[in-house]
């Protein structure tokens, strides 16, 4: 099978991970901009970070046959540093319209402060102006209220619900997200947000419509293979293979293709990896033999 992981922070993963992802059938990923585990202190750090999302990380993934897209945005935590947030919002348009940027994201609420709301609204307005998809991070604390408010504010600013993805849902929030007409993404984390078994039950109960599975793998305890592992569990437990395909590939493709930045035909062809062509030991290979003409198995 082939998989689309529409939320993973590749810049905090190693090439071993990317290789394992490719071998497990992950064909495409979206890397949304987020915080780095600690706050940045100047706008230059954001510039270099955004630049790596549209440059080096994309190139690294391509070397393993994984197509890399990204979402650009100011995350909710750092929106609370208002002076810095203002500067970041000023340079955001320089990155948000680049090739392969499929959404504004991940944006939304963390503590649900006024500063977060201001940054969220400004970025929603930008998305509406440029007809972009929005990827919303829902808060860990006061999640239900946070999601409700994310949806309401997005609606007020004029984001069509078909272009709104609410991420990090759980059993308590899924109905509200789906009832609003938005897409409901679920992050499979080993210990916290959502486990694979719970995800299986959710798909059994709600079906595949507008439901998306992702890993949100980052620098914390997380699993870059969460999407294929969850798909496997769904199949083992009798979920219709067509449903598995939609929740781990088709739905993400459908919602983010609205950006016009995804070449679906190219994704449909089997990736060919030829590291000899574009790689030497000074890039990501360090002296090992390049892989040549070996299609990524899936």
């Amino acid at each position, binding site marked *: 099978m082939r998989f689309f992981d529409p939320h993973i922070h590749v810049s905090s993963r190693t090439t071993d991970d990317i290789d394992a992802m490719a071998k497990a059938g992950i064909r495409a990923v979206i890397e949304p901009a987020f915080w780095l585990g600690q706050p940045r202190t100047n706008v230059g750090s954001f*510039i270099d970070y955004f*630049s790596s999302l*549209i*440059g*080096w990380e*994309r*190139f690294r993934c391509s070397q393993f046959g994984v197509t890399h897209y990204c979402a650009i945005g100011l995350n909710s935590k750092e929106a609370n540093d208002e002076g810095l947030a203002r500067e970041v919002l000023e*340079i955001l*348009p*320089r*990155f948000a*319209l*680049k*090739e*392969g940027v499929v959404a504004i994201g991940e944006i939304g609420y963390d503590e649900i402060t006024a500063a977060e709301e201001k940054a969220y609204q400004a970025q929603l307005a930008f998305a509406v102006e440029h007809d972009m998809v929005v990827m919303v991070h829902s808060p860990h604390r006061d999640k239900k209220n946070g999601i409700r408010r994310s949806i309401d504010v997005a609606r007020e600013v004029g984001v069509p619900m078909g272009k709104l993805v609410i991420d990090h849902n759980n059993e308590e929030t899924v109905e509200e997200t789906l009832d609003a007409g938005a897409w409901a993404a679920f992050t499979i984390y080993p210990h916290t947000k959502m486990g694979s078994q719970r995800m299986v039950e959710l798909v059994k109960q709600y079906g595949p419509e507008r439901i998306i599975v992702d890993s949100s793998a980052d620098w914390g305890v997380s699993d870059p293979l969460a999407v294929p592992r969850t798909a496997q569990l769904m199949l083992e437990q009798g979920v219709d293979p067509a449903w598995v395909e939609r929740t781990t590939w088709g739905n993400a493709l459908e919602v983010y293709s609205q950006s*016009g930045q995804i070449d679906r035909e190219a994704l449909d062809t089997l990736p060919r990896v030829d590291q*000899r*062509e*574009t*790689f*030497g*030991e*000074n*890039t*990501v290979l360090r*002296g090992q033999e390049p892989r040549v003409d070996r299609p990524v198995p899936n």
Partner: protein
Amino acid sequence: MTTQDFDPRAFLADLLRERLDPAGLDWLEGACEEVAGGIASTRFGALLSLASRHVPARPLEPGVAALARAEAGLRGWNPERWDLRETARVRLLLSRRDLAEETFAADLEQAFRFADEGELRALYKALALLPGGERFVWRAAEGCRTNIVPVFESVACDSPYPARHFDDIAWNQLVIKALFIGAPLWRVHGLDGRLSEDLARMALDLADERRSAGRAVPPELWLALGTHAGERGRRSLEAEVATGDTLGARAAALALRRLDGGDWSRDGCDQAAFRAFDPRETR
């Protein structure tokens, strides 16, 4: 650098006119007019980005006649492997009316700072076509520090820029780095004219390193010796002919013919002859 009657902007405009669909062409013409009218730095950057939404990244395929015109107009400049989107972006750049002025240099540097990979390729490819090329030497050397191979090649290959503007340190680094990352050395314009003892020594050191590590020596490495190999180089080449793999042995045999000088082009052992060892060309 260009001959008097060669206008790269018109040349690229002609190629694009024959190859873009009407919608893409409309957008590009409008954007070029906007650029020519004078434009803020951020808007200039936005237009370079927006090219990805209007112009496909398909190969340019300029054809034999256009390539001959390019070579006649600017020796060493070869857009054979450009794509349409890169070409459109370079045309946007050349539409500026202040190319020779400081305002352009400042905006160009801003464009580099915010560029994605595709934009970087186009911006570096444009350097050879700009007046006052010496203004961008630091930027071009910076481009050679990338590990993204297509970006490196946009500076190093198919362009007269490095041979003309790089000092010896930057030039030698370019050549050796090309070998490290597997960029095609035979496409580094002017290589045969800028070989040196220093470069030959660096190449031979690299060959020794590879052998000590039990790895193959890249066939194109032997291209960097020229007539500067000395006795050490001759021994290294003879060892490669005797023990290297097929491609390595053939490349070393070719390099042995270069040791004593002469007319390499006539003798079929100039840098172009090393195309035979480029895996991308022989597949």
